[in-house]
C-alpha cells in the first residue's frame, strides 16, 4: 500500500517539473520576460531546491520508518520506551534556523532592490476601476497635442517600449456615477499583476503619497498578459489587461499617433453615422449621445473618464476591451487579424449579458445602430 504514496509523491514532483517546461503559458511565472520577474523567479530557486531536499528527506523518512517498524502479524514486540534525546532536539532546532537564515539573505536584499525607483524611468499611472484598467502616460513628452495637452490615456492595454524601464504608480479610481443599478463605481483594492513581467502590488485607495509602485521592463517586443489579482467585487475575474511592448520604431509611431486627435470618419460612411449616435449629433444622433457621458475619444468633445478611453479602439495594437473580457481583434480565415464584430455586437446589445455587473447600461440599440457604432469604433485609430 505505501507504494501508492510513492506514486503520488512522484506525480507531484513530475508535475512541478512540468511547470518549468510550460513555456507557452501566457501567465507563467516561471517564464519571465523581463528583469523584475526574472529576479523574483531566481530568488526562489535555491529555497525550492532546499525544500525539495527536505521534502524527499522527511517524506522518505516517514515512509521508511512506517515500513521498517511496522507491526508484523504474530510477532509481539514491545519497543524500547525511548522518551527523547536533547542533542537531537537541539540539532533539529538549530539546523533549520541556520538554513532559513541563509536563504533569507538574498530574498531580503531583493526586497530592497525592487523597492528602488530609478529616476530615469518612464512614468505611467495605472488606474484601477471596477472592473477595468486605465493607463496615463504622465511624462512631459507624452502629452497630447490637442485640447488640454493632458497625458496620453489608454484603457485595458498598456503600450510600452521594449527595453525601457517603466515606473508604475498604482491608483484606485472610483466615483463614476453612471451605472445600471445605481451603484457607483467604488474605490476598492485591486492588485496589478503581469506574471511574466513583474510580481503583483496592490492598488490601495487612499494610500499615502503616490501609492504603490512597480518598476519593470520587457526584454522583447510582444503581448504580455496580466490581470487584477486582489478580489475586487463581482467581476474581479474579468479585470484583465495586456501589456504590449513595441520595438523602437513601432513605439515612436504609436506615440506620434496617440498625440494626435483620433481619426474622423469619412462623410456619409457608416462610421460617421455611428459617430452621430455616439455624440448625439446629426440625423442619427436624435435622442442618442449617451456614450459621451462616460467615454472619451482623443481630440473630441468626449472627455469623461468614468469609462474606458476609446481613442485607439480600432488599432490592432489595442487587442482587447472591457477588462479584456473580449478580444477586439481575432485571426480571420487567412490568419490575418480582423475586427471581432461578433463580440462587440454582443456587448452593445446588452453589456450585462456579457459581463454581469458591467456599469454600461443596455441602451436598447437597434441592429442598425449597432452596425453604425461598430463601424465608428473600429474606425478609431
Amino acid at each position, binding site marked *: 500500500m505505501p507504494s501508492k504514496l510513492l506514486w503520488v509523491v512522484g506525480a507531484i514532483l513530475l508535475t512541478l517539473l512540468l511547470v518549468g517546461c510550460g513555456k507557452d*503559458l501566457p501567465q507563467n511565472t516561471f517564464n519571465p520576460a523581463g528583469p523584475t520577474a526574472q529576479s523574483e523567479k531566481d530568488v526562489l530557486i535555491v529555497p525550492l531546491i532546499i525544500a525539495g531536499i527536505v521534502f524527499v528527506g522527511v517524506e522518505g523518512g516517514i515512509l521508511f520508518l512506517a515500513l521498517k517498524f511496522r507491526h508484523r502479524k504474530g510477532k509481539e514486540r514491545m519497543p524500547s520506551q525511548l522518551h*527523547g534525546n536533547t542533542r537531537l*532536539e537541539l540539532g533539529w532546532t538549530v539546523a533549520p534556523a541556520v538554513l532559513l537564515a541563509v536563504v533569507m539573505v538574498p530574498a531580503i536584499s531583493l*526586497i530592497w532592490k525592487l523597492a528602488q525607483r530609478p529616476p530615469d524611468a518612464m512614468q505611467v499611472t495605472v488606474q484601477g476601476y471596477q472592473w477595468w484598467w486605465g493607463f496615463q502616460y504622465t511624462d512631459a513628452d507624452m502629452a497630447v497635442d490637442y485640447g488640454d495637452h493632458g497625458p496620453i490615456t489608454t484603457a485595458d492595454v498598456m503600450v510600452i517600449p521594449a527595453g525601457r524601464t517603466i515606473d508604475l504608480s498604482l491608483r484606485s479610481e472610483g466615483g463614476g456615477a453612471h451605472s445600471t443599478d445605481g451603484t457607483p463605481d467604488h474605490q476598492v483594492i485591486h492588485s496589478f499583476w503581469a506574471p511574466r513581467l513583474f510580481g503583483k502590488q496592490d492598488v490601495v485607495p487612499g494610500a499615502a503619497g503616490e501609492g504603490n509602485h512597480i518598476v519593470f521592463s520587457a526584454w522583447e517586443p510582444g503581448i504580455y498578459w496580466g490581470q*487584477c489579482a486582489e478580489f475586487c467585487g463581482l467581476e474581479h475575474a474579468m479585470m484583465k489587461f495586456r501589456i504590449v511592448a513595441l520595438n523602437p520604431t513601432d513605439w515612436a509611431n504609436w506615440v506620434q499617433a496617440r498625440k494626435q486627435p483620433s481619426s474622423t470618419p469619412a462623410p456619409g460612411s457608416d462610421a460617421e453615422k455611428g459617430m452621430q449616435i455616439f455624440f448625439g449629433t446629426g440625423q442619427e444622433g436624435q435622442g442618442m449621445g449617451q456614450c459621451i457621458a462616460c467615454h472619451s475619444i482623443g481630440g473630441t468633445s468626449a472627455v469623461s473618464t468614468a469609462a474606458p478611453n476609446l481613442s485607439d479602439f480600432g488599432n490592432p495594437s489595442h487587442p482587447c476591451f472591457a477588462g479584456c473580457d473580449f478580444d477586439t481583434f481575432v485571426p480571420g480565415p487567412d490568419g490575418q487579424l480582423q475586427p471581432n464584430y461578433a463580440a462587440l455586437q454582443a456587448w452593445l446589445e446588452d453589456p450585462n449579458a456579457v459581463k454581469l455587473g458591467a456599469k454600461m447600461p443596455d441602451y436598447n440599440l437597434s441592429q442598425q445602430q449597432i452596425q453604425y457604432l461598430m463601424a465608428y469604433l473600429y474606425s478609431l485609430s
Partner: protein
Amino acid sequence: MATITLTPQKGILRRPMATTGFWSWFTTVDHKKIGIMYGLSSFLFFVLGGCEALLIRSQLAKPSNTLLNADQYNQIFTMHGVTMIFLFVMPMSAAFFNYLIPLMIGARDVAFPRLNALSFWVFLLGALFLNSSWFLGGAPDGGWFAYAPNSTTDPGNGLTFYALGLLITGIASTVGAINLAVTVINMRAPGMSLFRMPPFVWMGLVVQFLLAFSLPIITVALFQLLFDRRWDTAFFDPTRGGEPLLWQHMFWLFGHPEVYILILPAFGIFSEILPVFARKPLFGYQFVVFSGIAIGFIGFGVWAHHMFAAGLGPVANTAFGISTAIIAVPTGVKIFNWMGTLYGGDLHLDSPMLFALGGIAMFVIGGLSGVTHSIVPSDYQQTDTYYIVAHFHYVLFGGAIFAIFGAAYYWWPKVFGRMLPEKWGKVQFWILLIGFNLTFAPMHILGLGGMIRREYTYPAALGLTVWNQVSSVGAFTIALSVLLFIIMVIRTQLKPAGLENEDPWDARTLEWTTSCPPPVYNFEEIPTVHSLDEFWHRKYAEDESGRLVRVPAGGSGEDHHSDGHPIHLPSPSFWPLVVSFGFPMLGYGVLYYAWWLVAAGALVIVVGLTGWALEPSVAE
C-alpha cells in the same frame, strides 16, 4: 456502585431533570453530549462546505464555463471558506476538546457546564443565521477575508450577514475558550501536573489562549465593518479619512493566529495517536509542548505576510519575511519529534495511524510551500494565486482534516461504544489521500502558471485547463471518500453498542480508564495521576531487565473501591438555549432595521441571563 442524586425542585425556576431522551439534548450541560452535538453539527457544515467546493470545482472544470455566474460563484467561494473555517474546523475542534479534555485530565465536566451549553447553542444558531442569507437575498460574496472597502461598499445584505454571523459565532468561541482554559487550569485530577497532561490537552490549552486573545481583534474589526455598512461610518473609507489597510491588519492579526487555532488541535491529535500505535512514548514530549507554545506566540507576529503585496514598505516586508521563516522552526521540531516517535516503534498501521501518518506527510508539503512564502519577492508572484490555495489546503485539509478523521476512528469506540469498520477505514484513507493530492497538488502548478484565486472562470488560452480538470476529478474523489465515511458511520451506529475490549488500541491516557461510552459522571473515582501516559503505566511496568511487561489486571496501579457515595453533578438547564436565541434575533433586527426585534432579542438575553443567575443550583 456510585449513584447520582438529583432531587426535583419546585417553582417556576425548576431545573429540568431529564438526562436521557430526546429533549434532554436541549437542556444538557454534560460535556460529552455537548461534544457530540458540536461534532454532529460541524460535520453537517463540513458536508455543506464540501458541496460548495464541488460546485466550485464543477464550474472550473472547463474554461469559460457558465454553470455558475460571477455572482453565484462569489457567494459560493466565500461561503466555502467561511463554512470550512468557522463552522467546521473550529467547532469540530471544540467537539473533541469538549468531549476529551475533561476525560483526559480526570474531571467530571468542564469548569462552567452551562456556559458550555451556551457556547454550543450560540454557535449553532449563529451558523444557521449566517446560512439563512442564502434564502434572504444572497450569501456573503466578499471572500472570507472580506477586504474593505469592497466589503463595505458591496451591495446587498450578504456581507452584513457575514459581519453579524461571525460576531455571533465569535461569542460562542470566546465563551468556549475561557471555559476550556479554566477547565484545564483548575479541574485537573490530583497528580495531573501540567507536564503530565496529554499533548492534546496542551495544544487545547494553547488554542484557547489564542482564541481568547485573537477573537477580540476580529470582533472590533467586524463591528467597524458592520458600522461602515449599516450606519455609514468611515473606518475603512479612504474618501472620508478611513484606512482600507486597517481592516487587513486587524483581520490578519486575528487571521493568522486563527490558522494555528485550526491546526494546533491536529498537532495534538497526531501527538496522541502516534505513541499509542507505535507503542512507545511521544518522542521529546517537552519539546513538542514548548514548540506548540512557541507557535502560539510567534503566530501573533506574522500577520503581515498576508500583505506582502499591499505596499507596507521594505522594512515591514523584511521583518515579516523573517518572522514567517522563524515560525517554520518550531513546526519542524514537531515533525522531527513525530518521526522520532516512529523510530524503533512497533507500528500498528490501523486507520487512526494511517490518517495520522498521511496527515503529517501532507502537512509537511504545506509547511514547505509555506516557507517559500517567506521569500518575499517571489511571494509577489505567488500571493493571490492558486499556489496559495494549494498551500493552505495542504496545511488545513492535509493537517486538520486528516487529523479529524484519524481522531474519529481513534475515539469512536470511546464515544459510541462501537468500532468503525477497520477495513473500510483503510479504504477510505487511501481514497482520501489520492483524491486530496489529485485536487490540490495541481493547484501548485495552476498558481505558478498564473491562475489567480477567486476568479469564476478562466480562458482556455491560459493553458491550464488540464490541471483544472485533474483538480476537479480529485474533488469528487474526496467526496467519494467522505460519502464512504458517512455510510460507515450510519451502518456502525445501527449496530448495538458494546465492545469486546474497552481499551481496543491499548491506549495510554486517562479517558480509556473509564467505560465506553463513559458514564455521565466520567469516573467513579477521580483518578490520582502519577505520570505522563498514566493509563499505560498502570498497565505496564518494567521488569528486571528494563523491558515493559503487562501488569496483571488489578495487580497494580489504582485500586477502585466504590463505596456508593453520591457524585455531585450539575443539573441540566434550559437557560443557555434561551439566551442563545437572543443573538440571531439581534442579528435579524439590525439587518432589517427592525428595532422591535432588536429590543426583543435583548430582552430574551436579559431574561435568559436573569433566569440563569436565579435558577437553583443542584438538588440539596
